[in-house]
C-alpha cells in the first residue's frame, strides 16, 4: 500500500495540507498517516479522491476537519475539534473520541461516526437530495440544538457512555423541516423543537438504523451492533416541509393559468372561428 507518514509536530497547517494534497494528487498516495496533530485546520479540505484514507494517529486535528471534502475517509484516533465535516460533500469520518461544536454543518452527503460526545449545534442545516443523504452517528451524547434547521439526512444519538447528563440537549431539531433523527433513549428529551413529532420506528427506519449501527460497530470494536439495536429508539421527524409558512404575510395564492384565452372565460371557438 503506497502510504506516507507526516509528523505534524510543528508544521503550519498550510504546509501540512499542501503536503497531503501533493501526496494524494501528484504521487497517488492512497494512505496518509499524520502523527502529533497540533490543531492544524482544514485537514482533508476539498479533497475529491474517493479511495484515499487519512489517519490521524496522535494529537488533536484542528477545526474544519474534512470541510468541503468530497470522497476520502478520515480517521482520528483521539478527539476532534469544532466544524468536523462542515459542508462535506462525500466520504467518511471516524472519530475515536469526542468532537466539538457545529459538526456536519450544511453537510450534503457522506457519513460521520463519533464514538464519544459531540458539542452544540451538531448536524445544523443538513440537507439531502435524492441519493445524497448525509448521516451522523454519535456514540455518546449531543449538546443543545442537535439537528437544528435539518432539511434532510439522518442523525443518530446512541448515548452509550451512560453518565447522568440528558442524551440530547435542549432545542433538539428546532426548525427541522426534513430528514430524520433517531435517539436511543427511554425517556422523551425535554425542550424538543416544536417543528418535530416523536414516532416509533417502522421497518424502513430499523433498516436504515441497522446499516449505520453496523458500520459504527465495525469501526468502534468495543460495541456490539446487536445489543445496541436491542435497546429502545425513538424517531423524530418534522411536521411539515414548510415550518414558517404562516409566519410571513401570505400574499395571495398562486392562481394557476386558466385553460383558455381569457383568464376567466372559455371562448367559444366554434362560434368565433367556424
Amino acid at each position: 500500500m503506497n502510504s506516507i507518514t507526516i509528523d505534524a509536530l510543528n508544521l503550519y497547517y498550510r504546509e501540512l495540507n499542501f503536503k497531503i494534497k501533493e501526496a494524494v494528487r501528484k504521487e497517488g498516495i492512497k494512505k496518509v498517516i499524520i502523527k502529533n496533530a497540533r490543531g492544524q485546520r482544514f485537514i482533508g479540505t476539498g479533497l475529491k479522491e474517493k479511495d484515499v484514507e487519512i489517519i490521524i494517529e496522535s494529537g488533536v486535528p484542528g477545526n474544519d476537519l474534512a470541510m468541503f471534502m468530497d470522497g476520502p475517509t478520515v480517521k482520528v484516533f483521539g478527539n476532534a475539534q469544532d466544524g468536523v465535516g462542515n459542508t462535506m460533500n462525500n466520504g467518511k469520518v471516524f472519530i475515536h473520541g469526542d468532537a466539538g461544536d457545529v459538526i456536519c454543518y450544511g453537510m450534503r452527503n457522506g457519513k460521520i461516526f463519533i464514538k464519544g460526545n459531540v458539542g452544540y449545534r451538531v448536524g445544523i442545516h443538513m440537507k439531502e437530495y435524492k441519493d445524497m443523504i448525509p448521516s451522523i452517528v454519535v456514540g455518546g451524547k449531543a449538546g443543545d440544538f442537535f439537528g437544528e434547521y435539518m432539511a434532510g439526512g439522518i442523525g443518530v444519538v446512541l448515548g452509550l457512555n451512560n453518565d447522568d447528563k440528558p442524551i440530547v440537549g435542549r432545542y433538539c431539531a428546532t426548525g427541522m423541516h426534513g430528514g430524520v433523527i433517531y435517539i436511543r433513549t427511554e425517556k422523551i428529551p425535554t425542550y424538543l423543537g416544536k417543528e418535530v413529532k416523536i414516532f416509533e420506528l417502522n421497518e424502513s427506519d430499523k433498516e436504515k438504523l441497522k446499516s449505520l449501527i453496523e458500520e459504527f460497530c465495525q469501526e468502534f470494536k468495543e460495541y456490539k451492533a446487536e445489543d445496541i439495536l436491542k435497546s429502545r429508539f425513538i424517531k423524530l421527524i418534522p411536521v411539515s416541509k414548510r415550518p414558517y409558512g404562516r409566519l410571513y404575510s401570505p400574499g395571495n395564492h398562486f392562481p394557476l393559468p386558466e385553460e383558455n384565452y381569457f383568464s376567466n372565460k372559455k371562448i367559444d371557438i366554434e362560434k368565433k372561428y367556424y
Partner: protein
Amino acid sequence: MYEHNKAKEETELFLNNYFRVIKAEEIPTKQIPEIKSSPLHYRYFIEIVDNKKTGSLSLLTEEDYVVNRVVYINKNIEGAFVVSSGKNFGAFKGVGFPEDISKFFMLENYKAYAWTAHNRFPTNTPGWWGGAHPFTLLDFSIVHNGELSSYGINKRYVEMFGYECTMLTDTEVVAYLVDLLVRKHGLPFKTVCDIFSPPTWDVIQNMEDIKLKEYYKTLRIVYGSALLNGPFAFIIGFNGGLIGLSDRIKLRPLVVVESGNTVYLSSEESSVLEVCDKIDRVYHPEAGEPVFIFYNDYKGE
C-alpha cells in the same frame, strides 16, 4: 503604562499625594524587533495611609479607595493607564503576538500560580497597547474571546456605581462588573456567573425546585442590565484561582483539560497539547456552566 514622560511625572506626583509609595521601578523589558514603539512601563508598590485619604475619600474602604484612584488616573491623567492594581498580581500586555510580548517582558523570570494569556483580534476598536487583554481591576483579571452585544447597557450600568470605561474595549466592563458584584455586592462567584449567563425564561418556568426558580427569577429581574449578551467565553483570574464561563447558548468554544495537578482552560484542546505532554481528562462545559478552578489552599466558596 505611560505614553510619554509628562504622564509619568503627573502620575507619580498624584501617587505621592494619595499613597505612600514604598517602591517605584521600571518594569524590565527587552527590545526585540517584533515590538516596535512601546510605551513606558513602570510599577509602584504602594500603601494606603489614613492621613492621605482626604475629604470624602476617607469614608471609602481600602479597595474602593484604590478603585477610585485608579479610575481617576485612567480618566484624567492623559497618556497614563493603570495596567494592574491588585495584590501579588501582574498584567503584561501590548500590541504584538503573545510570544513576542512574553519575550519583551521576559516572562521567563516570573513564577505564578496561574497564568492567563490572550491573543486579541481587534474588531470594534483598533489595536493599541491599552486595549489589549487582560483587563484588570484590583485582584480580578479578564481575558475574553467574543463580543458583548449588550456592552451599551452594561457600560452605563457600571457607570452608575462610579466606574468609568476608558479603554474602548467591551472586556473592560466585565472586570468592573465582577468587582462590583463580588466585592461591593458581596455575591458568591456562582451567582455572578448566573447573572452573566442566566438560563432562559422557558427553562426557569419549568424548574420544579421553587427556591431555585425564585433564585434565578430574582437574579434576572434585579441584574437584567448585567446580563452579558452576544457570543463570549472568558476566564476570570482572582486571588483564589480561575473561573471559566461561556455564554448561555455556547457560541464560543471552551474546553477544560486536566494533566496531572495542572488544569488548563482553552478554546481548543489541541493548543493544550503544545504546553503539556499528556492529557488525563477533557471536559466540555455546558452553555453558561461556570468552571471553577481553586488553588488547594483557597478558603472562600
